[in-house]
């Protein structure tokens, strides 16, 4: 009632004002200067408060503005200066002197176990704020890293809903261990995944809408506080928290569709049969198909790919605070259908972040999220068979059953049948929480203790129904898996912060312990009456064929002591000393504890008069750091123990269990160790309208845990030792600028990273050839090096074959280069044929606003990497047994000899790795383009809204690449450092178009 009264009065005044000011257009003029040096300021935005009227100061700092508003207030705003308001009254000339705004420089950055003013940071850290990712429809939090942060190489290795991505910060350090960074969510280091394309992303459970900021810690000064887990870099994810003030409710909703980015052009049935006939005849076989018939074609891709796959997200959050209590509550629902039918992801998540000042010294609070994610995964082989299944096979037989036998009468899993007959349903419930209490026991001396939990419960149901071949063979194949991981964390820190005149001191010491336990059970059964019960009643299966259930458990513990000293002298010279001592249950008794120190120095040169006097810079800081971090992930929980494994044999016609040594113990094992040096320069120009950060780094990783080949006469082929060394060196550059700041404003940020990876030592060996892969690990080369034969076109005639190293070849066969000229093509002729590591990569983000409109455009690029298109090994094998890419229409024939596509032959080509499959993987992509419009306050005020933004967004809209596969952003074995850049039956990436709104009231 009272509110209504105010509204009526306001409306009354409004009418009155409009009425009285009608017909007058007074002009106000003046000069805007800087308070510091009295120089005129160019390009200051001058607005009449409460209207859309505005202007810009000219080169002399002069402005001129007319208004009909009675008694207007002018608002002066300028980057790097405090926004100033001036009540005009009846004045015609108003000169304004603006104060420099230091808050821009005093931006706060989240660091390990605390926060720091940006100006005081001595390490290399990139921050991604809410602004950067607001309304961008991210599938998972880590996607925000792509193109937005220097030094971070991100590959979304599969388009499957929920698929993991692979992230490398400043290159990969490890051959056998994990290379994924450590993710820390609100202080809780969480279990991260393998990054493999077919595994699920552990970050799926976190709603991107809840993210306040993402900090990427890159150099040793920033990461050594995470010790043995900091070696691959650290990603700190901080969620939004309540702020004191009026309560707000925000609603963010978007809907969108995904479409395929690309498609393989494949043969139709007629072309396929022609090829199959040609291949058979070439080897003395009969015609397999009647060349006079015109068979019907099946487009297996059409049958499996959705024309468009919907995505939607609903997020509602409430924030606010008062009386020492601040809160954020949010609820999020996300649903993504996959571009391949019968795959999707659904997420429900809830968050409560709370802070309460008990009194003026003690604060308690928590961050808590609980989420439930349900994923339907596509059959891992169905994408590949979608491409390779013969097009002259019908999807269904005349009797309505799915086709289950190929043209050779061999049973196969019909990929279309799999869509309905196959289920791989994963349900994950995960909760990540961290409760803390902190007390300022003396001025500047704070103690803080926190207890955190990361608990995840996972159930996986997979079923192969009886309408597909393998399912029919065994009468349905059902398996269930249930796993749970609880990780708890306790951290206790003491922090002392004090300034003595020009000396600033910030000390941190603490003890943390983390422990994790994993347990799982699994069971499977076959031989069901029908497909009705699927995985939900294994007891109905055939007892005779039953396998034993499985179960597993694992645990690890880390105890750590941390310490950090930040010392600043006169705001000019900054020193940071950091150290962490980690004790881990994973390592041998002889090396259980490791110490990881770092030192960093920074010089804020902008504080020096002689720099100020140059008049060129508005900020200048030089940083230098050196330190050591470690890696202990991805090598199992017990690499140092002797382990015994079960094996089987048959005695008395029964399967009997045996047990034998499967791993020779090595009590001397210890962490992989990465020493990193970093030199960074941060510059600001034009009152920080342009800021530039450049970093050069050198990382050397030693004590790599490698499986060393040992004499097989020991009964073992390999053992794990700390040998081997890798270096990464590189250069990162990023720039942020306000290019135009008038009625139209244009800000732009760009980053580029050059990284060079080199293997330095492999424990006495010069090279390692990983088994069954087309790569080589070789001293002097980088990881991800492709290895195989080099081709030199095709044999054109029998004459060419006579003198060659391939006497058994026929015209139209691939000619390989006999490097050692010994007259035989053998393993010694294999060469390095490519490398999956990019020469450089980066992103360029632009934001242009005009009135309420904002257009943002993110371009992202990768240059100089190769991809190994394993699909082509089949799609261009020319045997006539599998469908082929249309490129084979240009295959070698006696008439068509000017080609590099070999002849058709039913003889399966020797499964060699060679250079034809290696392609340039460079690309430039319009990653994200978004147009948003903030409705004017005047309009939405009436509806009681504080903010209403509508937006449209397109992801992956355009990609420029020479790569002939589906998408250059691909890596089948994402997590592996050895098998990078393979494209093999990858679930296709998609374009995504969304439209949504964001409303606050």
């Amino acid at each position: 009632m009272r509110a209504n009264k105010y509204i009526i009065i306001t409306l009354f005044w409004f009418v009155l004002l409009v009425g009285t000011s009608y017909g007058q257009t007074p002009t106000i003029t003046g000069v805007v200067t800087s308070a510091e040096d009295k120089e005129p300021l160019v390009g200051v935005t001058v607005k009449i408060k409460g209207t859309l009227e505005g202007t810009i100061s000219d080169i002399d700092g002069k402005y001129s503005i007319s208004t009909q508003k009675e008694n207007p207030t002018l608002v002066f705003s300028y980057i790097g200066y405090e926004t100033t308001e001036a009540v005009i009254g009846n004045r015609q000339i108003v000169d304004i002197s603006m104060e420099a705004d230091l808050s821009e420089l005093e931006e706060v950055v989240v660091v390990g176990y605390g926060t720091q003013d940006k100006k005081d940071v001595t390490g290399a850290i990139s921050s991604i704020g809410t602004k950067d990712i607001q309304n961008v429809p991210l599938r998972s939090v880590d996607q925000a890293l792509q193109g937005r942060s220097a030094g971070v190489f991100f590959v979304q290795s599969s388009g499957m809903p929920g698929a993991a991505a692979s992230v490398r910060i400043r290159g990969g350090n490890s051959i056998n261990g994990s290379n994924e960074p450590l993710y820390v969510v609100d202080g809780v280091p969480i279990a991260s995944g393998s990054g493999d394309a077919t595994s699920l992303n552990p970050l799926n459970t976190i709603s991107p809408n809840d993210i306040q900021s993402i900090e990427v810690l890159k150099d040793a000064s920033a990461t050594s506080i995470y010790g043995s887990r900091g070696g691959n870099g650290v990603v700190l994810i901080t969620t939004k928290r309540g702020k004191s003030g009026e309560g707000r409710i925000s609603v963010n909703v978007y809907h969108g569709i995904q479409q395929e980015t690309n498609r393989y052009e494949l043969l139709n049935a007629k072309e396929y049969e022609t090829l199959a006939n040609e291949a058979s005849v070439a080897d003395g076989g009969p015609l397999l198909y009647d060349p006079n018939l015109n068979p019907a074609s099946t487009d297996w891709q059409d049958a499996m790919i959705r024309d468009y796959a919907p995505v939607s997200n609903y997020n509602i959050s409430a924030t606010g605070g008062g009386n020492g209590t601040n809160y954020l509550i949010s609820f999020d629902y996300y649903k993504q259908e996959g571009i391949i039918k019968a795959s999707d992801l659904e997420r429900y998540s809830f968050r409560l972040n709370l802070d309460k000042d008990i009194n003026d010294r003690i604060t308690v609070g928590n961050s808590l999220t609980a989420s439930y994610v349900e994923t339907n995964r596509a059959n891992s082989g169905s994408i590949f068979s979608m491409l390779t299944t013969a097009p002259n096979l019908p999807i269904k037989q005349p009797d309505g059953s799915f086709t289950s036998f190929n043209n050779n009468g061999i049973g196969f899993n019909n990929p279309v049948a799999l869509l309905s007959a196959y289920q791989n349903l994963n349900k994950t419930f995960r909760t990540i929480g961290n409760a803390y209490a902190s007390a300022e026991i003396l001025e500047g001396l704070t103690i803080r203790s926190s207890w955190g939990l990361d608990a995840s419960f996972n159930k996986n149901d997979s079923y192969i129904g009886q309408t597909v071949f393998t399912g029919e063979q065994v009468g349905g194949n059902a398996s269930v898996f249930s796993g749970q991981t609880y990780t708890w964390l306790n951290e206790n820190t003491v922090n002392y912060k004090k300034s003595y005149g020009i000396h600033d001191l910030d000390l941190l010491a603490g003890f943390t312990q983390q422990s994790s336990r994993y347990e799982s059970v699994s069971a499977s059964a076959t031989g069901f009456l029908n497909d009705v019960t699927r995985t939900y009643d294994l007891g109905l299966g055939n007892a005779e064929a039953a396998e034993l259930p499985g179960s597993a458990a694992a645990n690890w513990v880390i105890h750590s002591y941390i310490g950090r000293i930040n010392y600043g002298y006169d705001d000019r010279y900054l020193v940071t000393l950091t150290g962490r001592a980690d004790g881990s249950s994973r390592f041998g008794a002889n090396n259980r504890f490791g110490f990881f120190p770092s030192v960093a120095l920074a010089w804020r040169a902008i504080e020096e008069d002689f720099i100020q006097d140059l008049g060129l810079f508005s900020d200048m800081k030089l940083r230098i750091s050196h330190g050591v971090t470690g890696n202990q992930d991805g090598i199992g929980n017990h690499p140092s123990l002797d382990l015994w494994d079960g094996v089987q044999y048959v005695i008395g016609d029964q399967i009997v269990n045996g047990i034998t040594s499967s791993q020779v113990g090595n009590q001397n094992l210890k962490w992989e160790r990465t020493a990193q040096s970093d030199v960074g320069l941060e510059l600001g120009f034009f009152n920080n309208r342009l800021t530039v950060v450049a970093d050069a780094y050198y990382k050397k990783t030693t004590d790599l845990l490698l499986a060393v080949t040992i004499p097989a006469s020991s009964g073992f082929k390999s053992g794990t030792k700390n040998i081997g060394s890798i270096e990464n060196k590189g250069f990162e550059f990023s720039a942020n600028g306000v290019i135009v700041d008038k009625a139209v404003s244009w800000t732009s940020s760009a980053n580029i990273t050059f990284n060079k990876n080199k293997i330095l030592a492999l424990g006495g060996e010069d090279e390692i050839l990983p088994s069954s892969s087309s790569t080589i690990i070789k001293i002097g080369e980088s990881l991800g090096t492709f290895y195989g034969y080099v081709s030199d076109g095709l044999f054109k005639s029998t004459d060419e074959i006579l003198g060659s190293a391939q006497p058994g070849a026929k015209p139209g066969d691939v000619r390989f280069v006999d490097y050692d000229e010994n007259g035989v093509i053998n393993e010694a002729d294999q060469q390095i044929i490519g490398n999956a590591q990019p020469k450089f990569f980066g992103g360029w983000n632009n934001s242009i606003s005009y009135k309420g409109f904002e257009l943002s455009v993110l371009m992202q690029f990768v240059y100089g990497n190769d991809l190994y298109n394993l699909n082509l090994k089949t799609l261009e094998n020319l045997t006539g047994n599998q469908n082929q890419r249309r490129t084979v229409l240009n295959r070698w024939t006696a008439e068509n000899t000017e080609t590099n596509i070999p002849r058709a032959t039913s003889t399966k080509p020797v499964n060699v790795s060679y250079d034809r499959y290696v392609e340039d993987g460079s690309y430039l992509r319009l990653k994200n383009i978004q147009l948003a419009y903030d409705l004017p306050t005047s309009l939405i005020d009436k509806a009681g809204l504080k903010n209403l933004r509508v937006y449209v967004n397109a992801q992956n809209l355009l990609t420029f690449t020479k790569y002939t596969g589906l998408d250059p952003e691909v890596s089948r074995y994402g997590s592996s450092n050895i098998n990078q850049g393979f494209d093999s039956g990858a679930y296709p990436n998609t374009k995504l178009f969304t439209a949504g709104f964001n409303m606050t009231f």
Partner: protein
Amino acid sequence: MKKIIYNIAFLVLITSCSDLEVTPDGINTAENLFQTERDAEAAVNAMYSSMQTHDVYNQFMEVVQSQGTDDAEWGYGRNTGNINKLQMDKFQFDASAELLYRFWENHYVNINRTNIVLTQVPDMSIDAELKSRFLGEAHFVRALMYFNLVRLFGKVPVITTPTTTLEGLNVPRNPIADVYALIVSDLESCKENLPLQYGPENYGRPTQGAAMALLTKVYLNNEQFDEAKQEAQEVIDLGIYSLWPTYGEVFEIANENIGESIFEIQFKSTEGTNGAVSSSYAGFFRPSSAVLAPPAGSFGGFGDNPVTENHYQIYTSGDQRKDVNVLHVPTAPSSIQYPYYVNKYQDPDALTVGDGGNNYYILRYADVLLMYAEAENAVNGPSAAAYDAFNQVRRRAYSFSTTLPSSADLTAGLSDVQFLDSLKLERRKEFAFEGQRRFDLLRWGDLADAMAEQDPSILVQDRHKLFPIPEQELIVNDMLDQNEDY
């Protein structure tokens, strides 16, 4: 001040509730093993497991024995990309062959497993009889593994202790005599430790008879004919073993481990659920569906290890062994030059390519009889005893009673050389594709001649009588030396 004390007390209270010494769950370590009889038995069972792999008896042994001789070849039935098999067939193998490395490696995997048993079990407090059986089993398997190695590679490292550390693993090769000394002493101790027979629940474990039969083979191989004859005689005198009336019955799954069987590598069909314990030979050897359409509900094989024309021609009419051993597919496409396939190890109940339940013979009674005949002939010439042992096997092959003279009997009055020649041919027919051919040819010094007969383009050189020590092994173990001319 009070507050500070509280706070510090709080900090102290919460420290360290977890221990860095984590005992792994779900994993066995040496510390908790070898306590009970069952532990010991599990360690014993593990010794057989790696003999069952493709790298030993479930594939490579036949590659070496059949494709690597005049019995089978590579490629005509199936164009595999397996260059190692081609090299084996054409005698172009060198030290880099992966097949040889895996063959070598898995023999030593098993040797290590026997050494674990021989080191751990003696100190266990378990039933004495069982303990001595376990030790006997380990001695037998170790002898078998070293016997394979020494015949194929010559000098090899003799290792008799289990590997427990990554240090000090480089060892030199021992002289051939040392290897045989260990084999003989292992088998001699088997004779004391192993039982004569088992109940059905232990079928598949080696017996005294198996040790004696293997010892016969060792002596025969080393041309210690007196000892060989004596050992063979002892096996015969046990009276446990007898020939099946027909050749076909020898390979029936129902007849495994009884009758003629002395020692077999065990396989079991598991309806396709456990490829690790089932035989792959059915699928590997069976012709592919393109060559011969499989019966409904069955599957086409790989057509691997195709039989040579040279082998197919050795059988005379009436010899049952021809059709049991070889499948001829006259309707095969013309691209298949010699459509002959191995017909042994065909499990009609196998559901998939790798699902056979057929065991793989290491020793059977027919072998003992022919070894006896060979030793007797070497000692006393073609005596009546030699003829009798020979003819038992021959008669059975032609479906005659083994005890009565028959039209199939070996011509009387042969010289010892002629007798030996007949015996060589008989062994080739009787034990076709049973892992004997290369060993026999090497023993007789006939490898080069046999190959020249089968395919004159294949040139067998002196060095080929031994395999090269695998290159990968030479690289990591600098104390090893290579065989001559590799």
